[in-house]
């Protein structure tokens, strides 16, 4: 039996592939169709951003926007190499290290982005695992519910900024407090929304499992968790922007590399061009990470119809 099982499983996947996979030609035409559908959306997005930039440039042109305070896009995006020099924040404070030594400006930019993105990703991962586990445990164990849920409800409206001193007290300076801040910013909301999602699971699905003789554990593992996944991924995507916001605050306290450090330095050295450059960068990164998340969502949640997708940006 131990031999027959994997073989038949392989057989099963082969059969499914053979049955469901469309031919190369139809796949190509599907891709073309999707590109055609995405084209107007991309166009509108570019137009939207372009309009905003044009307005800014216009205000600069007629002399309303002071270029020393509100430099328009062509100024803060124009001097790329000059801006990138400032991203070398880690070495900045070391004695004997000048602006021109250390990694090249482009390397520094990628190091900075990678450091911040890593903190966001680690925070999101830890927060989602923790909060799903706690949320499920709250509904699974009545005692746990009574002991834990009131405290979580009490703490969830507290702004993550209030946790910043705690993060520094406990974790000092470095990656840990930044990741902690992301986790704390997401954890309470995600626990509450996990509980909420569990309560909203279609009762019929649970009844079906019960009439089939499923135990409580089987009902949770095979009905409730798959049923709440789509909702949780939407919550995760909404919280992704929150994570990007919080990570900057945490980084501005001094963690070496990071976009928050760059913004802080720009503030201290009165460099509005650098501020806007970093803002543009963060916007782009947030957008890209959302797009990535949507890709993952589509992969994991193959059964959720695309049309009902919330927040269908681009």
């Amino acid at each position, binding site marked *: *039996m131990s031999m*027959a*099982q994997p073989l*038949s*499983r392989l057989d*099963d996947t082969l*059969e*499914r592939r053979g*049955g*469901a996979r469309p031919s190369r030609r139809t796949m190509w035409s599907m891709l073309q169709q999707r590109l055609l559908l995405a084209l107007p959306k991309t166009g509108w997005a570019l137009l939207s951003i372009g309009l905003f930039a044009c307005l800014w440039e216009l205000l600069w042109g007629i002399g309303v926007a002071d270029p020393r305070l509100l430099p328009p896009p062509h100024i803060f995006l124009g001097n790329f190499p000059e801006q990138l020099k400032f991203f070398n924040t880690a070495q900045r404070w070391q004695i004997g290290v000048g602006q021109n030594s250390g990694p090249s400006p482009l390397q520094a930019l990628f190091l900075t982005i990678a450091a911040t993105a890593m903190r966001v990703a680690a925070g999101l991962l830890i927060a989602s695992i923790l909060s799903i586990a706690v949320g499920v445990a709250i509904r699974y164990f009545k005692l746990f519910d009574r002991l834990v849920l009131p405290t979580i409800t009490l703490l969830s409206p507290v702004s993550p900024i209030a946790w910043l001193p705690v993060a520094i007290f406990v974790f000092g300076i470095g990656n840990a407090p930044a990741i902690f801040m992301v986790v704390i910013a997401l954890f309470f909301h995600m626990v509450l929304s996990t509980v909420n999602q569990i309560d909203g699971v*279609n009762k*019929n*699905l649970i*009844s*079906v*499992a*019960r*009439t*089939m*003789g*499923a135990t409580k554990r*089987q009902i949770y593992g*095979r*009905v409730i968790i*798959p*049923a709440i996944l789509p909702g949780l991924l939407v919550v995760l995507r909404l919280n992704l922007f929150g994570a990007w916001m919080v990570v900057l605050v945490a980084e501005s306290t001094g963690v070496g590399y990071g976009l928050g450090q760059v913004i802080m330095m720009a503030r201290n050295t009165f460099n509005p061009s650098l501020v806007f450059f970093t803002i543009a960068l963060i916007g782009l990164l947030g957008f890209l990470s959302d797009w990535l998340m949507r890709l993952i969502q589509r992969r994991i949640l*193959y*059964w*959720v*119809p695309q049309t009902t997708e919330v927040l269908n940006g681009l």
Partner: protein
Amino acid sequence: MASEPRTLAETSTPCTTAVGCRTISKVWAQGTARAHEALRDIDLDIGPGEFVAFLGPSGCGKSTLLYLIAGLEQATGGEIQSFGKVVAAPSPDRSLIFQETSLFPWLTVWQNVSFGLSIRGDGLDQRKSVAREALQRVGLAEAMEKRPDELSGGMRQRVAVARALAMRPKVLLMDEPFAALDVQTRQKMQDFLIDVWRESSASVLFVTHHIDEAVALADRVVVFTARPGRIKTIVPIDLPRPRDPFSRECEALRRQLTDLLRDEVDRAFAEQEALAESV
């Protein structure tokens, strides 16, 4: 009033009944201010292989009775037996089919059908062959690898029937299973259900508020009163299937059932209006 059916019940032999209800009552939210009585003194015996329709105005508790028989809810009074055993919890012997689609959207059709088998821990080969067989019986053998959202409403309900059949139930409980379908599809599904029922030896308990549906399908029609639900009368239908809905007998039955229901529907309406005014 309750004592007379009880003596009747005592004379019947419990082992041969597929479902036996003894003075069942159900009060929702008992002991609170929102308490309301759904069922009162239900005495009913259903034989093995019998097709029984529950007919009544909406909100009369006929679905509640079905849930009690399934074991998903507990009666506040009385006792339900199935093949000599007291119903205390849900069992694969009594499969339930809902009005709305209750398929797991993340599973393929065959995985849905064999869900109960996988709960039981059966191997893949076993699950697949049972699923294939059950799907063949509902005429959907080609849809094995499809996902529920790729199917039409009628097909989904057929998959739900296949899922119930895969457990080889002794009793099939159906809660207005075709109510969400259009008239033509419902007609087809009724014919299909009769075929499936004939092939299996299961008893079918079919909740409906459609008189036509009850007349077309059932051996016996249990007519419920408005809330709290009691059995008003039981109408036996001794006509061969398939039944011609335009025959004189069916016409007469429809008239009889319509008359029986009219008072109850009027009462249910009056009660709802009174309720709406009080709120």
